[in-house]
């Protein structure tokens, strides 16, 4: 981007009641400006009716993901300098999720699929039992470690063409969470979980395009997790479901 440009040409998706279009705004350039800064400027200085979602501004809460120049990004940690084409930006709501208004999407389908993937811890002990000893060099613990820093931002869900093509597909984030639980030796719900992730819309729908890993802001690799689930369900089949 030309740093001498004083303004950015920003196209932002505006939508209400299912009727949407891009509107263009002139936004002043600032040093170290993020995409979220740009959206906030438009809402505060140009059009207070613009709706968008954010909370922490520091890449922890996973609220502010949007499509930026056609690719899914966490906007609070994405610098304008790195993604703008010339002096222009196109900011749209996350792909593959229904739009509520402007840049705000309905996250319900995304989280419903976490439940459908049985991505919920099933305890095998009570609080009265002693703490389960799991050492840091435990193989399963190391495998779980690779999958546990997800911030639920749905960037992977928006990057995935299988989600776009198959509404039943559970998606990278839910399957990644299930994989972290498959590697939790304290969990008592493994048979049900493997059944959930190998049912219609489960891990075997993944085409290994690896867009999830490419765009995950926390550099997780859901494709790795999904391939682990594929192996685990294949092994389970050979053991006749045991």
């Amino acid at each position: 981007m030309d740093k001498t440009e004083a303004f950015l040409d920003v196209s932002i998706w505006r939508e209400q009641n299912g009727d949407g279009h891009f509107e263009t705004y002139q936004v002043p350039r600032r040093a170290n400006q993020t995409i979220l800064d740009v959206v906030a400027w438009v809402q505060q200085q140009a059009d207070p009716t613009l709706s968008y979602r954010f909370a922490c501004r520091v890449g922890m809460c996973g609220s502010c993901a949007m499509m930026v120049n056609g690719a899914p990004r966490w906007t609070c940690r994405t610098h304008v300098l790195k993604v703008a084409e010339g002096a222009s930006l196109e900011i749209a709501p996350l792909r593959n999720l229904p739009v509520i208004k402007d840049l705000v999407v309905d996250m319900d389908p995304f989280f419903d699929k976490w439940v459908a993937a049985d991505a919920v811890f099933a305890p095998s002990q009570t609080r009265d039992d002693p703490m389960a000893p799991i050492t840091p060099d435990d193989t399963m613990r190391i495998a779980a470690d690779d999958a546990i820093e997800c911030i639920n931002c749905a960037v992977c869900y928006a990057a995935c063409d299988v989600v776009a093509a198959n509404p039943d597909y559970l998606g990278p984030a839910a399957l990644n969470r299930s994989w972290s639980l498959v590697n939790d030796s304290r969990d008592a719900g493994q048979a049900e979980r493997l059944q959930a992730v190998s049912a219609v819309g489960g891990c075997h729908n993944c085409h290994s395009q690896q867009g999830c890993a490419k765009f995950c802001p926390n550099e997780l690799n859901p494709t790795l997790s999904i391939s682990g689930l594929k192996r685990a369900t294949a092994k389970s089949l050979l053991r006749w479901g045991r």
Partner: protein
Amino acid sequence: MIRPHRTHALWLAFILHRLSGIGLALFLPVHFYMLSLALTDPDQLDGFLAFTDLLLVKCAEFGLVFLLAVHMFGGLRLMALEFLPWSPRQKSYAATAVALAFFVSTGFFLQAV
């Protein structure tokens, strides 16, 4: 134009695998039909075999062999991804599959002309 969320090597490997699969699925019925002519109409088969000596047809065959090879090596890559312990070298494996497919198809072409 490829949309921005798809502009990475492993999505291109995916689409190459998908398109080569579709190409082979379209080719195979024609291939089996031509083979069946050996039993049903040998004269027509001989005429067709003479037609395949044309350089243009050899070039098309190069494409077919490339599709076959890239689908086979790409398929092996995907089976390794799904059944072997994870490797971080996914892009290298995809590039190797394409390189091997070029090697095989170019070898075929050099021998054919």
